[in-house]
C-alpha cells in the first residue's frame, strides 16, 4: 500500500456537504471511498457507514470499533419572505458572529448560491456596534424571487458554507468541516496502514451521523456493533488567543489523548506508553466529566464499552475557516495503528 496524500484526501472530504441529519449522500461517497479496504460496508437507517475491515486473516482476537462522525454543522431554511430573502436557523452550534457576508450553498432540488446579509448598521435604530446580530435578524440573498425559490427550495432544506480547502503556510490548511473530516481522514489513513501488516483483530470502522446534534448516530451503531473496545476520533480546540492553556492544544504537536472518567484508564495508560515508546509526539487532555464527544454515549452502550478518545486539534472550530496542521494526521495515524497492532 502506498502512503496516502492527506491534504488531497481532506480537500475531497471537506468539499462534500454532510450537514447533520442530511449525511446520506456523503455516506454513499464514503462507502465508495473505503471500499478498497473493507469487505462488508453497510449504510444503516441513520446514514451511519459501518465497515468491517478486511485483513485477509481470519484469526479473531478482540472486537474493536473505531468511530469518527461524518456530520458537520450548518444552517437550515426556515422561511422565504415575499421578496425572496431566506430566513434560517442553525444545525449544531454556530456562532452568529461569523455568519455576516458568508457565501453559502442551499441544498434544495438543486444547489443555489447565496450570501448572508442583514440590515446595514447605519439604518438600525439605537445601533450599538458591540451588539451581535442575532441569527433571526440574518437572511440569505440568492438573487431569485420568492416565486422562483418556491420551485427549488423547501422549508427544512439544509445550507452549507461555500468554501474550498486552502493551503496556508507550511503544513497548515484551512477549510470548513475539518471537524470531523480530520477524524475520517485519520481512520482512512489507519486502514491504509493496517493493510501493510499482519493484523488479526476483528475491527469495525463506524462513521457516524448526527454527532453535532446529540450523538444519535453513535448511540444506535455502538449498540449494534457491541465491541470490546471503542476508539473515538474527533477534533478538539487548537490553541488560540483567549483560550485557556489547559483546554487548548498546539497544532502540529500531535494527537491529543484524553484521560478521565469517560475513558478506560488501562487502555489510556497503554496508548500513552506506546506514544512514549515509539516517540510519537502527543498531548494529554484531562477531561473531568463529559468529553463532549461520542465517547460519552459510547462508554455506556449495552453492558458498557471500554472507550478511548483521540483528538486532532483545530483552530476556529465550527467556522468556515477552521485551521489544522497535516502533521497531526500523520502522527495520529501512526499512534492509532501502533496501538491496534498491540491489541
Amino acid at each position: 500500500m502506498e502512503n496516502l496524500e492527506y491534504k488531497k484526501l481532506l480537500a475531497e472530504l471537506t468539499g462534500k456537504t454532510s450537514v447533520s441529519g442530511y449525511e446520506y449522500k456523503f455516506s454513499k461517497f464514503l462507502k465508495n471511498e473505503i471500499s478498497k479496504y473493507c469487505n462488508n460496508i453497510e449504510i444503516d437507517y441513520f446514514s451511519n457507514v459501518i465497515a468491517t475491515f478486511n485483513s485477509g486473516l481470519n484469526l479473531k482476537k478482540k472486537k474493536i470499533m473505531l468511530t469518527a462522525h461524518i456530520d458537520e454543522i450548518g444552517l437550515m431554511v426556515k422561511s422565504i419572505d415575499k421578496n425572496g430573502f431566506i430566513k434560517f436557523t442553525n444545525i449544531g452550534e454556530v456562532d452568529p458572529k461569523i455568519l455576516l457576508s458568508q457565501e453559502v450553498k442551499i441544498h434544495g432540488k438543486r444547489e443555489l448560491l447565496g450570501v448572508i446579509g442583514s440590515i446595514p448598521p447605519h439604518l438600525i435604530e439605537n445601533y450599538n456596534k458591540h451588539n451581535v446580530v442575532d441569527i433571526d435578524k440574518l437572511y440569505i440573498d440568492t438573487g431569485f424571487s420568492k416565486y422562483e425559490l418556491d420551485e427549488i427550495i423547501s422549508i427544512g432544506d439544509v445550507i452549507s458554507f461555500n468554501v474550498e480547502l486552502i493551503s496556508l503556510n507550511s503544513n497548515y490548511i484551512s477549510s470548513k468541516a475539518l471537524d470531523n473530516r480530520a477524524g475520517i481522514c485519520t481512520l482512512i489513513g489507519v486502514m491504509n496502514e493496517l493493510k501493510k501488516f499482519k493484523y488479526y483483530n476483528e475491527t469495525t470502522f463506524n462513521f457516524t451521523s448526527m454527532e453535532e446534534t446529540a450523538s444519535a448516530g453513535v448511540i444506535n451503531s455502538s449498540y449494534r456493533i457491541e465491541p470490546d473496545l471503542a476508539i473515538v476520533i474527533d477534533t478538539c480546540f487548537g490553541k488560540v488567543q483567549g483560550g485557556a492553556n489547559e483546554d487548548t492544544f498546539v497544532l502540529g504537536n500531535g494527537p491529543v489523548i484524553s484521560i478521565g472518567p469517560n475513558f478506560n484508564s488501562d487502555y489510556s495508560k497503554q496508548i500513552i506508553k506506546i506514544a512514549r515508546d515509539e516517540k510519537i509526539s502527543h498531548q494529554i487532555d484531562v477531561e473531568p466529566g463529559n468529553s463532549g464527544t461520542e465517547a460519552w454515549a459510547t462508554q455506556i452502550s449495552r453492558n458498557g464499552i471500554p472507550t478511548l478518545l483521540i483528538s486532532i486539534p483545530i483552530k476556529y472550530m465550527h467556522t468556515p475557516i477552521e485551521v489544522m496542521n497535516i502533521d497531526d494526521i500523520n502522527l495520529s495515524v501512526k499512534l492509532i495503528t501502533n496501538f491496534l497492532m498491540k491489541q
Partner: protein
Amino acid sequence: MILEELSNLSGISGDEKDIRDYIMEKIKNYVDNIRIDSIGNLIALKKGKNSDLKLMLAAHMDEVGFIVKSINDDGTIKFATIGGFDNRILPGKKIFIGKEKKPGVIGILPIHLQSSARKKRVFSLNELYIDIGSDSKERTEKIIDIGDYISFKGNFKRLGQNYYMSKALDDRVGCSILIDIILQTELLDFDLVICFTVQEEVGTRGAEVIAYSEEPDAAIVVEGTTASDVPDVKDSMTSTKLAAGPVLTIMDRASYSNKNLVRFINQIAESKNIKIQYKNTVTGGNDAGKIQRSRNGVKTAVISVPVRYIHSPTSVIYEKDYINTNKLVFEVIREFSFNKI
C-alpha cells in the same frame, strides 16, 4: 468580462497599481494622451474637435481592505482597516496578504470557549487577528512585512440568474464602464478627460488632485452606491434599490449636484427609455465632493450602480442596472453639449 477581471484584482487604497496597470493596457491605444500623476491617478484624454471646454469622467480604482500593522509573538498578525468597514463582517473570512497573495484567515475564539457575555458582544478590531499558519513571530516575519496590503479574495460570480456577487464592485463597476466609454466613444465637440482615481475610500484624495490639475468645466462621477432594499429597512430609509436602474444623486454628504446637469442626464434617460432612480437619502459621499469645490468650482453630477452589502466581500448588483448605467453614461456623453447645462 472586464468587470469580472477588474473585481477579482486587488487594489486597496494606496495600492492601486494592479488596477491601474490593467486599465492602462485596455485603453492606451484608444486615447490621445495618457499619464499617471504623482499620487497614482490614471488620466486619459480623448481630444475633441474643439479644446476650449473639457468634460471629466471619474471613477475610483481603490477598494476597502486592510494593512498589516504588527506581528504577534504567536505568529498571528494585527491589522488595520483601510476605508469604511462594518467590522462585524470580519470574523471567519479568508484574506490574501501582500504582492504574493499569501492566504490567511481572520479567526476568533470558538463559540464553545466563549463566556456568555463574550457570546453577546461583537469582536472589536483590536481583538481580531490574521492566522497564516505560523506558530512564531520569526516564521511570520519571513513571509509577511509590516505594511503589506490585505484584500479579500477575488470571488466574482453570478448570483441567481440576473445578479452578480463580488468584492470591490464599489467602484470597479465605474472603472469598467469608463473603459467601455473610452473604447466606444467617437470624436466629440469638446475634450473628454477620463480619470481613474486613487484613495477615494480614505477621503477622496486622488480626486482632489485631478480636479486641480485637469481644471474640467464639468464632471460626471461614475460610482457604486449603497442599496438598502433588504428586510427590516423602512421604505423611507431605503437609499436605492436593485433592479430600479441607474442612480442619480441630488445631494449627499459631500456634494450637491449641478441641477442643470442632473436635469440633462434625466432627459437623456427619458429619451432613451432608461429607467432611473434618485438616491433617496442624503448619506455617503464620493469624488464629486472634491471635484465640485476645486479651484473656481466645477459643475458635477453622479451616476451610480446600486450595490447591496457594499464594502463587503459579498457585494451584489443587478446585471441590468449595470448595463443601463453604462448605456446612460454613453448616451449622456454622446449627446452632451456645454450649452445644454
